[in-house]
């Protein structure tokens, strides 16, 4: 089953690392955005099955992006995964309260990202 995934992250290296890991999902189409605003634009012009976002980004951060995405009726149930350097419990709780479904801290491990994506997409 093809899946469309949006990666919102300001670091091109990180985008590529995450994208490379997720390409192992069958039929995965990866679309990248460098910040929250670019991410929102992509969200408005595409239908995504999963959104992955960083928190600390220029222009618009990941938490603002999540709150805006969750206001959109079409994206109320689309899973959101956060990948961030912020490892504090408060950041995690805040992100989950805003509507994130999974919270992964950096440094990332490709296997962990892939497994979390599989869980969120309901792929066995």
């Amino acid at each position: 089953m093809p899946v469309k995934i949006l990666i919102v992250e300001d670091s091109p290296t990180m985008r590529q690392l995450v994208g490379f890991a997720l390409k192992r999902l069958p039929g995965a189409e990866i679309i990248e955005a460098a910040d929250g605003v670019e991410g929102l634009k992509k969200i408005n012009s595409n239908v995504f099955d999963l959104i992955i976002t960083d928190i600390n980004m220029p222009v618009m951060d990941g938490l603002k992006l999540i709150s805006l995405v969750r206001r959109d009726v079409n994206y109320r149930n689309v899973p959101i995964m956060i990948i961030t350097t912020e490892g504090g419990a408060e950041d995690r709780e805040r992100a989950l309260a805003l509507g994130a479904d999974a919270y992964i801290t950096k440094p990332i491990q490709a296997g962990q990202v892939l497994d979390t994506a599989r869980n969120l997409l309901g792929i066995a």
Partner: protein
Amino acid sequence: MTSDRNHNSQDDLGRESPRRPEEILNLMTKSADFIKELMEENERLRYRVVQLQEENQDLATGVAAGQRSEFIKQQIRQLEKEKDRILEEYRKVEEENKTFATRYINIEEENNNLANLYVCSFQLHSTLDFNEVVQIIMEIIINLIGGEDFGIYLFDDKTRKLKATAMEGMPIDNLRPIAMGEGIIGQTMVTGESFFDPVLQQPTRPEGKRSPENPLVCIPLKIKEKVIGVIVLYKLLPQKTQFQNVDYELFTLLAGHAATAIFSAKLYSEAQRKLDTIKGFMGLLTMSE
């Protein structure tokens, strides 16, 4: 009978003798008793025959049952053996399965590490812009190694000292140049050997900032045997609890790729600068003509 009618009888010698009715009656009674006894004996014997037949049948049944039981026991023994063999096979398969699962996990891990390394080297060599290369190195250290405070020192040919080129988590302006052989960083530059503080092996590390001269990790940026600088790591992200084997490998491999990327970018920028100068001269020359 004629003789009875005549009240005559014969004795043991066959002589005719007259019999009295009492004798005859006595004889008849005895005969009747005898017959009765015979009948009773017959009955007893019949009963005994029935008993014996039953016993015989029981014995026959017992023998058959014994044979059957022996057969079943044999079958059970065979099945027990078969079960043991199957269990042994199962145990072996289970063991193989575990070995394969472990190998799968290891291969998966290796695969992920290779993928990470591929992306890192791809990114590092995707540009010849020096600042971009440095930025990529910094991103890799944050995202893959989990560095919080770290930086890059590059060797300055003019001053013969290591100069901080990029720093994350601490102000770069306060960092003084480091002479060859001075402290851990200077020693790494001279020996070309990586330095890993033994504290990295411990599950908990002491909190607080480390001084610039006292890094947790110091990795030489080497092209073959020539050291062009070092990557220094002072602090890991709080969630990065321990430095694992893969981190050592990744860090060392990254340093190799980073070194060539930095070197190429430097050469390219120098060549570009020279080219621009030559172009400027050429421009001046053609203008003067």
